[in-house]
C-alpha cells in the first residue's frame, strides 16, 4: 500500500473548487512528486503548488482532464490522463482530454517538458490527483448516507454500498464533494489492481489528426496578424552587414524589412544560437515573403573560421589521438592489463553532424503590445522563452505569457528558444502581431545540430578469452560522447573512460537521446566484434558481464541495474528465437540503457538485389509500468525507424562554413520503402514506476543494424552514415 501526502508544511498540492456549470474541479500540478514524503529533505519547488492541470467531474458524470502538457508526438495527451482515470476509477469512455485552452489563466504556468521525462515526472502527481478525487467523492457519498467510506466501493464512476442497494454516480455527488476536506494522506492503488493502466488505448486526438483539424504552431492565426520570415548568414562564422532594404520594402505585399538582434547579456541555457543578427522581412502572405527572400542581395562579413567536413574530421581525429583527454573513470590498472592481454582489439567510430528536421519547421507567434507580450507556438521550454524574452526586451516577466501549441515533432529541437525570441524581436519592431515562419531551408541550415563525434574503443582479452580490460575515449563538438559509469563499467576489472570537447562555431544541441544514440551504436557493435574475437555468442558475452556487475561489481558505482539489463536481453533472445538457423537472414543484437529505461533489440536483415533491407526488428523494453501499450509501442517503433534511418542515411555536411544540404532533395531521411517491414515490441512486466519511452528505443537500433550489416556483407561499419561507400569508410577511419 502506498500512502502519499497531499500537502507539505500545510500547503496543499491540490485545490478543490466548484466547477462552472456544476460538478467538482480538482486543480493540481503535473510535476509534483510525492513518492517519498517522509524523507523529504530537498526543498520543494514553489511551482509544485501552482495549479497547471485540472480534473473536472461534471454533474453529467463526464470527466474532463485538462492537460497543460505540450504534445510533441509522444502521446502524453492520452497516457497521462489514463493515470488520472485509473486512480479516479472512472470509465475511460467517459473521459475527455483537452489541451489547456490557450487563453485561460490556469495554463499560464506551463513548465519544462523535456522528452522522455514527462511520464516520470507526472506519475505521482497524476495518481495523487485522481486518488484524492475518488476519496472525496466517496466521503461525500458516505456522509450523505450516514455510512463509512469502508462500506462503499466504486466501479466505473459509480459508488455503491458493499452490503446494500444504494448507489450514486460521480456526477450526482460531485457538487457535494467540493465541500469535503482534502484528506491529508491518500492511498494509491496497488499496481496489480490497475484496470486501465497497461491496456491498449488509442490516441485521444487521433480523430482530429486524421481530418486535418489539429492546430500546430504553423497553423495558429490571429486577427490582424502579419507574417514574417528571416534570412540568416549563409555560413557559420559569418555576420550580416547590410542588404537591399529599400528594394525589398518596395516589393508586393511586403510591409517592412530590417535587421533584428536577439542577443542580450547573460544568455540562458536554451538560448543556443549562432546568429543573433538576422534580416527580417514582414509581409502579408507566405508566398510574397518567399519571393522577397529570393530577391535579397545581402553583404556578409566573415568574423570567425569557416569550418568544413574536412576541418571537422581533422580536428576530431587530432583531439582524439593527441589531445589531452579528461579522465572520467578508472578501475584497476588498465595500462598493464592491456599490455599483458592475449588479444587487444581497438576500433574507432564516428558520426556526422545531423539536423533535427522536425517535419513542422520552426515558427512562433508574437505580439508585443507596449509592455505586454503574448507568445504562442511550438516550444518545449516555455518558461525559458519567457525569461529570455523578458531580458531581451526589458519587459517584466509577469507581463509575458507563453502558450504552447501542438508540435510537429520535437526530438530536442524545440528546447531552444531562439525562434521564439526572433518572433518577439520582430513583433516589437513592428508593434504588431506577427507569426514568424522558417522555410525548410532556414530550418535545416540554422539548426541546433547533433554534433559530430569520434570515439575509440579498446578491449583486452586474456588467454581464456575473458574480457579483462576495456577503455573508451570520446571527442565531439559540444560534448564528449562518453558515459563513464554506464555499462560496461562495473563489469570489467580494468577500465577507463576519457573524453574531450572539440571547439566549433556551429550551433549544437540535444538531439533525441543525446550522445546515447552514438555511444550505443559504437559500443554495441564493438562488443559484437569482441564477442567474435573471443569466440562467444554476443548475447552470452553480455550476460556474463551483467552477471559480473551484479555479483561482484568493479569500482564504487555504476549507473544501471544489471538484472534489468540482462532481463531485456533474455526476453528478446527468447522471443526472436536467437540461435535459430534462418537462411538468408542476417541478425544483429544490441541492448542499451538510457533515460532510465532498458531496451534490447534483435534486427533481422535480408539482402534484396544487393541492397540490405530490414525485415524485422524485435524489441524488448523495460520501462517499468507501461501506461498505454498502444502509444508505447508506437513510440518505440518510431525510435527504431529513427535510429536505423539516421545511422544509415543522414548527414549534414559543411563546406566553407555552410551546410551543403538545405532541403530533403539532398538531405537523406529514411523513406517508406527503407523502413523495417515489421517491428514487434515486448514489454517486461513489473511494478516499477514508469520511465521514458521517447528516447530509449532509438540507440540500440544503431548497434543492432551495424552488426546485422556485418553478418550480411562481411564488412564492419564504423562510420555513420553506413551508406558511405566502402573506400570512404576507410578514409574516415584515417581521418
Amino acid at each position: 500500500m502506498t500512502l502519499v501526502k497531499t500537502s507539505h508544511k500545510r500547503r496543499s498540492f491540490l485545490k478543490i473548487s466548484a466547477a462552472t456549470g456544476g460538478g467538482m474541479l480538482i486543480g493540481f500540478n503535473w510535476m509534483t512528486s510525492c513518492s517519498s514524503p517522509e524523507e523529504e529533505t530537498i526543498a520543494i519547488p514553489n511551482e509544485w503548488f501552482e495549479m497547471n492541470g485540472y480534473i473536472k467531474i461534471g454533474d453529467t458524470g463526464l470527466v474532463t482532464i485538462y492537460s497543460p502538457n505540450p504534445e510533441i508526438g509522444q502521446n502524453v495527451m492520452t497516457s497521462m490522463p489514463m493515470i488520472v482515470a485509473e486512480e479516479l476509477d472512472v470509465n475511460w469512455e467517459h473521459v475527455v482530454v483537452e489541451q489547456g485552452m490557450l487563453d485561460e489563466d490556469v495554463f499560464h504556468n506551463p513548465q519544462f517538458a523535456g522528452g522522455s521525462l514527462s511520464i516520470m515526472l507526472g506519475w505521482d502527481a497524476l495518481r495523487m490527483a485522481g486518488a484524492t478525487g475518488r476519496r472525496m467523492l466517496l466521503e461525500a457519498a458516505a456522509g450523505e448516507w450516514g455510512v463509512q467510506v469502508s462500506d462503499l466501493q466504486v466501479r466505473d464512476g459509480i459508488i455503491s454500498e458493499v452490503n446494500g442497494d444504494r448507489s450514486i454516480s460521480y456526477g450526482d455527488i460531485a457538487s457535494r464533494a467540493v465541500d469535503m476536506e482534502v484528506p491529508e494522506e491518500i492511498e494509491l492503488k496497488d499496481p496489480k489492481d490497475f484496470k486501465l493502466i497497461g491496456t491498449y488505448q488509442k490516441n485521444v486526438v487521433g480523430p482530429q489528426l486524421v481530418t486535418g483539424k489539429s492546430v500546430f504552431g504553423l497553423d495558429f492565426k490571429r486577427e490582424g496578424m502579419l507574417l514574417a520570415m528571416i534570412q540568416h548568414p549563409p555560413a557559420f562564422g559569418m555576420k550580416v552587414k547590410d542588404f537591399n532594404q529599400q528594394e525589398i520594402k518596395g516589393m508586393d505585399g511586403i510591409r517592412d524589412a530590417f535587421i533584428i538582434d536577439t542577443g542580450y547579456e547573460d544568455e540562458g541555457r536554451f538560448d543556443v544560437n549562432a546568429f543573433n543578427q538576422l534580416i527580417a522581412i514582414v509581409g502579408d502572405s507566405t508566398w510574397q515573403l518567399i519571393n522577397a527572400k529570393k530577391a535579397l542581395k545581402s553583404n556578409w562579413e566573415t568574423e570567425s573560421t569557416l569550418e568544413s567536413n574536412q576541418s571537422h574530421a581533422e580536428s576530431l581525429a587530432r583531439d582524439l589521438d593527441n589531445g589531452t583527454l579528461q579522465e572520467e573513470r578508472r578501475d584497476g590498472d588498465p595500462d598493464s592489463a592491456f599490455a599483458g592481454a592475449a588479444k587487444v582489439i581497438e576500433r574507432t567510430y564516428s558520426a556526422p553532424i545531423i539536423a533535427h528536421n522536425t517535419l513542422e519547421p520552426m515558427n512562433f507567434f508574437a505580439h508585443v503590445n507596449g509592455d505586454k507580450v503574448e507568445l504562442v507556438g511550438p516550444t518545449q521550454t516555455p518558461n525559458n522563452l519567457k525569461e529570455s524574452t523578458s531580458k531581451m526586451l526589458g519587459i517584466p516577466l509577469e507581463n509575458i505569457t507563453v502558450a504552447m501549441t501542438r508540435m510537429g515533432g520535437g526530438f530536442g529541437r524545440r528546447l531552444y528558444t531562439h525562434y521564439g525570441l526572433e518572433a518577439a524581436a520582430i513583433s516589437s519592431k513592428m508593434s504588431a502581431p506577427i507569426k514568424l515562419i522558417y522555410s525548410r531551408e532556414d530550418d535545416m541550415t540554422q539548426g541546433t545540430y547533433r554534433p559530430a563525434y569520434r570515439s575509440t574503443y579498446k578491449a583486452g582479452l586474456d588467454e581464456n578469452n575473458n574480457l579483462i580490460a576495456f577503455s573508451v575515449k570520446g571527442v565531439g563538438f559540444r560534448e564528449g560522447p562518453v558515459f563513464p559509469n554506464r555499462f560496461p563499467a562495473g563489469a570489467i576489472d580494468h577500465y577507463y573512460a576519457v573524453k574531450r570537447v572539440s571547439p566549433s562555431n556551429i550551433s549544437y544541441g540535444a538531439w533525441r537521446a543525446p550522445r546515447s544514440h552514438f555511444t550505443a551504436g559504437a559500443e554495441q557493435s564493438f562488443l559484437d566484434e569482441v564477442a567474435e574475437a573471443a569466440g562467444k555468442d554476443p548475447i552470452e558475452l553480455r550476460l556474463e558481464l551483467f552477471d559480473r556487475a551484479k555479483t561482484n561489481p568493479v569500482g564504487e558505482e555504476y549507473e544501471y541495474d544489471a538484472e534489468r539489463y540482462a532481463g531485456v536481453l533474455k526476453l528478446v533472445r527468447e522471443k526472436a528465437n536467437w540461435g535459430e538457423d534462418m537462411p538468408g537472414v542476417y541478425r544483429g543484437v544490441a541492448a542499451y540503457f538510457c533515460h532510465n529505461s532498458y531496451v534490447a533489440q534483435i534486427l533481422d536483415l535480408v539482402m534484396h538485389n544487393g541492397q540490405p533491407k530490414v525485415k524485422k526488428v524485435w524489441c524488448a523494453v523495460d520501462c517499468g509500468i507501461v501506461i498505454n501499450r498502444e502509444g508505447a509501442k508506437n513510440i518505440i517503433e518510431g525510435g527504431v525507424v529513427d535510429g536505423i534511418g539516421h545511422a544509415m542515411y543522414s548527414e549534414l555536411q559543411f563546406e566553407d562554413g555552410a551546410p551543403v544540404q538545405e532541403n530533403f532533395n539532398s538531405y537523406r531521411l529514411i523513406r517508406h520503402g527503407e523502413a523495417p517491414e515489421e517491428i514487434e515490441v515486448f514489454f517486461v512486466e513489473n511494478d516499477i514506476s514508469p520511465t521514458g519511452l521517447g528516447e530509449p528505443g532509438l540507440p540500440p537500433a544503431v548497434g543492432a543494424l551495424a552488426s546485422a550489416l556485418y553478418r550480411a556483407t562481411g564488412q564492419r561499419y564504423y562510420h555513420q552514415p553506413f551508406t558511405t561507400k566502402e573506400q570512404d569508410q576507410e578514409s574516415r577511419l584515417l581521418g
Partner: protein
Amino acid sequence: MAIFDIEINGKKQQVDVDPATPMLWVLRDHLDLVGTKYGCGIAQCGACTIHIDGTAVRSCSMPVSAVGNKSVTTIEGLSEKGDHPVQKAWLEHDVPQCGYCQAGQIMSAAALLDSNPTPGDAEIDAAMNGNLCRCGTYTRIKAAIKTAATG
C-alpha cells in the same frame, strides 16, 4: 495579382493572388484550410499532398494558375465525417505520432487506393515514398493501407 475561381472540397472559392502562388499557400494563407501542411516546398516530403481530380499532387509545387476548372480536394474535404476508409484504418492502427505528416500520408494513400484498390508492398512503397514521416510511423501506415484496401 489575378482572380481565380477554384472548386475546393465541392465549393467554389475565389482568390486574388499572384498566378505563380502555389496552391499550398492559397489554401493555407488565403482560404484558411490549414490541414494541408508545409514541409519542404519542393515536392520532396509530401506533407502538402492534395487531390486534383482525384490524383495526388504536391500542392507546394502546383501554381494556382495551373488548377483551372479541375476539382481540388484537401484533407478537410476527403470525407464529411472523417470516415473515409483510409481515415478509419488510420484510427484503427493508431498511426499518428506528432501527426504533422499524416494529412499528406492519408491523401497519398487515398489516391493510391482509388487507382489501385489492392496494392502490393512494392506498389505501396512506390506510391508512398514521396511522403516523409519524421516520427517513423511507416510500418503502421503500411498496415493501415492494407486494412483500408481489404476493408
